[in-house]
């Protein structure tokens, strides 16, 4: 892009590893995560935090995979604290002992976000592909006992949307400070499992009104956030607040990315933080600049007044649905490919004749041809 100043990043999403004990059917990691190895050591991550902070980053989300699998998590948190970054641990809670959580507290961790897949133990374990529900609840109790603020995140889909009231009740019982009721977005693993996960418009509307009532009732006590799936919006949201605009992601293999799946888009090259500085990559890596700003936009985005609101929507969604990452997000009702989304919605209301099976997140990518 020419002329415009490079935007200031505010949040670093540090994906410390793709390894995870869970096998969630909507995991946000790439399908080929197992081919990508943890390339960054403790000093690399420390340097990434320092360089990101110098660029303007004020928050760091420590995520994965499961960040607890990194034995150097404490050291990374300490560096974040030293830089006065607001640090948020995004975790399944597995594997964690109370002593380690206490060490993380002493290291200066600010917030802990625990995923709970479902308010019912058996259903939660089924979605995670791992027996974990009761230990997760134990972890949330330690979080509060040790004085951390607690965020509970539940991913919503057609099987658990009707239980949204139970999710809210559970979060209240756990004294969560923030509850994220985040509908699955149909990319990566969730795209593979779309037929089993995509809700109907009716389900979504009922759930949304329950969430809205809870948000009002709990105002000032618990922040309740309800995120609609892009498949059911008229106009797409600004994915990641715009490509390479406010969020920077560093993947376990060291790539500096604008979002969690950008490195799976063909034809884009993102530099590695082991070889280049964060500043250089943020400012000028070909992948980062490819969809920054408005110059890349096709019609109908180019002449649309919303182009500075939604930035053309989600590039990964465009790619998953049309094969072209530079297309208008088909979630947008103005997209020439919007029919693809409408067809998926229509399918969600048909009673399914056969049982839809989940593809669990596994190391072997299901549709990857052998080489």
């Amino acid at each position, binding site marked *: 892009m020419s002329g415009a100043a490079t935007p200031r990043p505010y949040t670093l999403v540090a994906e410390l590893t793709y390894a995870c004990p869970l096998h969630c059917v909507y995991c946000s990691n790439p399908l080929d995560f197992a081919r990508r190895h943890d390339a960054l050591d403790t000093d690399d991550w420390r340097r990434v935090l320092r360089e990101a902070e110098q660029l303007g980053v004020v*928050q760091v989300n420590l995520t994965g995979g499961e960040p607890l699998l990194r034995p150097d998590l404490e050291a990374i948190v300490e560096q974040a604290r030293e830089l006065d970054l*607001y640090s948020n641990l995004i975790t399944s809670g597995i594997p964690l002992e109370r002593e380690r959580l206490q060490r993380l507290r002493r290291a200066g961790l600010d917030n802990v976000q625990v995923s709970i897949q479902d308010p019912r133990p058996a259903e939660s374990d089924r979605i995670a592909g791992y027996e974990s529900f009761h230990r997760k609840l134990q972890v949330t109790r330690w979080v509060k006992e040790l004085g951390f*603020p607690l965020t509970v995140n539940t991913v919503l889909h057609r099987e658990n949307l009707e239980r949204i009231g139970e999710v809210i009740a559970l979060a209240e019982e756990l004294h969560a*400070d*923030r509850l994220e009721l985040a509908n699955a977005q149909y990319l990566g693993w969730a795209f593979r499992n779309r037929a089993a996960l995509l809700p109907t418009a009716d389900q979504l509307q009922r759930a949304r009104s329950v969430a809205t009532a809870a948000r009002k009732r709990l*105002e000032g006590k618990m922040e309740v956030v309800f995120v609609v799936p892009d498949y059911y919006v008229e106009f797409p949201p600004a994915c990641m607040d715009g490509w390479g605009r406010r969020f920077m992601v560093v993947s376990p293999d060291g790539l500096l990315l604008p979002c969690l799946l950008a490195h799976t888009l063909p034809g884009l090259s993102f530099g590695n933080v082991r070889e280049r500085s964060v500043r250089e990559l943020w400012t000028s890596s070909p992948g980062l600049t490819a969809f920054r700003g408005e110059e890349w936009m096709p019609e109908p985005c180019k002449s649309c007044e919303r182009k500075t609101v939604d930035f053309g929507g989600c590039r990964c969604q465009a790619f998953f649905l049309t094969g072209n990452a530079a297309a208008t997000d088909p979630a947008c009702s103005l997209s020439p490919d919007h029919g693809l989304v409408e067809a998926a919605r229509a399918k969600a209301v048909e009673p399914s004749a056969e049982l839809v099976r989940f593809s669990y997140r596994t190391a072997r990518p299901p549709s990857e041809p052998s080489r």
Partner: protein
Amino acid sequence: MAPAGLPDAGRLIPSRPALAAKARLRFDRTSGGYMLLYPERGLALNPTAANILKLCNGELTLDGIVERLQREYAERPAPDLRQDVVGFLEEMARRGLLVEGT
């Protein structure tokens, strides 16, 4: 507590406001101002907002906060200043960013 004509104002404001555990004030050397950071969010504060939040120490009451600010913002009529503070703290409380001091 509520000023006349605003029966509901300040309903959510704790009697001795303190910043909630999830929120942290951070000086931002890029902008030269303060930011209030909390999970997944950050607010860029104007100087007045930052000054109000710095007084949310869990010891001062709303009246105490207004009184302290009055010294610095002497040109602003007291009722207006009070209304500014109530409006801002009410919004902070709505977001769960204030708790009762102990």
